[in-house]
C-alpha cells in the first residue's frame, strides 16, 4: 500500500504539509525540548528531584485528590446523566447546557469562586464550619476544585451510553420477574460500564494536570496542600529548569499512560458493542 490512497480531491499536499509543519512547530518541538531537558540530567540528580520528600508529598496529593475527584464524578456523573436522559422536569435543558460550564469557565474564576463559597464565612462554608469540616485551604478543597473542573467529562461520557440502553430489554426483564436492582446490575451497568471507565479516566487525566482552580483553594503548604504542577512552577520561578523538567517528565509519562488506557478502554467498549449487536 502506498502512503496515501488515490483521490480526485485536491489539496492533500498543502493541508497535510501545513498540518504536520504547524503541529511540529507548536506542539512537538516544545515537548521535545522538555524531554531533552529532563533526560540530559544525570540519573542521580533526576532521582534527587523526582523522589524528594516534597515531590512525593505533591504526587500523593495530586494523584490521591484526582482519583477521589474522578470517583466522585463517576457516581454523580452517572446520577446526573441518568436524570438528564430518563426524566423530564422543568429546567432540564438549562441544566443540560450548564453541565459544560466548568469547561467554558476559566479555571482562575472557578478557583476564586469556589474558595469564596467554601471559606469559613462563605455561603456553604459557614454551615460546614460548626460541623468541624474545613474545605478551603485543605485537601478537601483541592478535591472539590478537581471535582468541579472534571465533572463535564464524566457526565458527557455516560450520557450517550445511557441513551443506548435498550429499554425493551429492561421491560422484558421486568416482565420476567427481575427486580429494579437486578435490572440495573445485569442490563444497565454492563452497557454503560465502558463509558463509566472512560469518564473516570478522562476526569482523572484532566484533574491531575489542573493548576488554576486548585492554587486558590489549596493553601499551598509544602507536603500538605501542594500539588505537583505548583511544585513545577516553584522550580521554574527559582530558575531551576532541570528540576521543573524532571517533574514535568514524570507528569507527562503518567498522562501518556492514562491516554493509552483511554484508547484501550474505548477499543474494549467498541468490541463489546459489536459483540452485543450481533
Amino acid at each position, binding site marked *: 500500500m502506498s502512503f496515501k490512497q488515490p483521490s480526485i480531491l485536491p489539496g492533500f499536499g498543502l493541508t497535510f504539509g501545513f498540518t504536520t509543519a504547524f503541529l511540529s512547530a507548536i506542539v512537538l518541538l516544545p515537548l521535545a525540548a522538555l524531554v531533552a531537558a529532563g533526560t540530559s540530567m544525570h540519573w542521580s540528580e533526576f532521582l534527587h528531584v523526582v523522589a524528594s520528600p516534597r515531590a512525593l508529598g505533591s504526587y500523593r496529593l495530586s494523584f490521591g485528590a484526582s482519583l477521589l475527584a474522578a470517583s466522585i464524578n463517576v457516581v*454523580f456523573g452517572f446520577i446526573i446523566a441518568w436524570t438528564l436522559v*430518563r426524566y423530564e422536569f422543568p429546567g432540564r435543558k438549562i441544566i443540560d447546557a450548564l453541565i459544560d460550564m466548568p469547561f467554558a469557565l476559566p479555571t482562575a474564576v472557578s478557583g476564586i469562586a469556589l474558595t469564596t463559597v467554601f471559606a469559613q464565612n462563605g455561603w456553604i462554608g459557614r454551615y460546614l464550619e460548626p460541623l468541624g469540616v474545613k474545605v478551603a485551604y485543605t485537601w478537601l478543597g483541592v478535591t472539590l476544585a478537581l471535582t468541579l473542573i472534571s465533572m463535564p467529562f464524566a457526565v458527557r461520557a455516560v450520557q450517550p451510553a445511557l441513551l443506548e440502553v435498550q429499554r425493551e430489554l429492561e421491560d422484558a426483564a421486568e416482565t420476567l420477574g427481575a427486580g429494579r436492582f437486578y435490572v440495573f446490575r445485569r442490563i444497565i451497568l454492563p452497557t454503560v460500564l465502558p463509558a463509566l471507565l472512560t469518564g473516570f479516566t478522562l476526569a482523572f487525566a484532566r484533574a491531575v494536570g489542573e493548576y488554576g482552580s486548585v492554587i486558590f483553594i489549596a493553601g499551598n503548604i509544602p507536603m500538605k496542600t501542594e500539588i505537583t504542577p505548583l511544585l513545577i512552577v516553584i522550580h521554574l520561578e527559582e530558575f531551576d529548569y532541570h528540576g521543573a523538567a524532571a517533574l514535568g517528565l514524570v507528569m507527562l509519562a503518567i498522562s501518556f499512560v492514562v491516554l493509552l488506557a483511554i484508547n484501550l478502554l474505548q477499543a474494549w467498549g467498541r468490541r463489546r458493542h459489536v459483540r452485543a449487536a450481533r
Partner: protein
Amino acid sequence: MARSLPGAPAADLNRPGQHTWMHSIVRWLFIGVSLTFLAAVLLAPLATVFAMALAKGVPAYLHTFADADTTAAIRLTLITALIVVPVNTIFGLAAAWAIAKFEFRGKSVLITLIDLPLAVSPVISGMVFVLLFGMHGWFGVWLQEHDLSIVFALPGIVLATMFVTFPYVARELIPLMQQLGNDEEEAAITLGAGGWMTFFRVTLPKVRWGLVYGMVLCNARAMGEFGAVSVVSGHIRGLTNTMPLQIEILYNEYNFVGAFAVASLLTLLACLTLIVKTLVERTGYRRR
C-alpha cells in the same frame, strides 16, 4: 467537548408500570441529588462571582475597569485571542481537510498528536516554551544576542495560548467532515470546480456551524487560560498580565470587588459560549 444529546426522555410517563410509588421516589431522589450536587459545586460559585463583584455597588464595580493595569490586561487578552483564534482556525481547517478527505497511513497517530495538548498539564504547556526560549533555554542566548524576547513578553503568551487551544477547532471539524462524506466535493471537482472554489462553495457552508462552535470554544479557552500563560508571562503589571492573571493579582491583594469584577466578564464570556453551543445544536448540526 462532548456534546449534549438530543431528545432525551422518551415520554417516560406513557410507559406502563412507571406510575408506581417506588418509581416516583427513585425519580425525585435522582433529580434531587443531581440538582443539589450541581447547585453546590456549580451554581453557588457562579452566583458568587456576581454577588462579590457587585458587593459594594455598581460604581465600585465599574471603577475596577478605570484602572490602567486592568484595562491593559483586558487589551492583552483581546490581542492574544485575536492572534490565536484565526491561526488555530486555519490550522483546524487544514487538518480537517487532510484527515477527513483522504486516507493515508499514520492517520490515527496524527489525530492523537493533535489531541496531545489536551492531555498535558497547562503548567507543562507553558514550561516547554520557557525551556525553548527562556534565558537558559535552547534559543535563549541567540535571542538575547539579537535583543529579542519571547518569554515574559507577548510572543510567549501567544505561543503558550496557541499550544493549549491548538486542538479545539480541529476536533470539532474532523468528525463533522468525516460524517458528511466526500460525495458533494467529488461532484464539484468532476464538474470542473477548482480546489479553492470547492472548499469555499461546498465544504465551508456545510461545516459552518461546527466551525463557529469550534472557534467560540477556542476563544473561550484562549481568553481564560491561566496555568500556561502564568508560567510564561512573568507577571509584569500593565504589560504581560492577561485577564486571568490580573484576577489572581487583585485577589491576592484582597481587592475582591476588582478580582470578581474581572472574573464576571470572563463568566459572561463562558455563558455566551454555552449559548452559542446551544444555538448551534438547535440548527441541527450534531456530532455522532
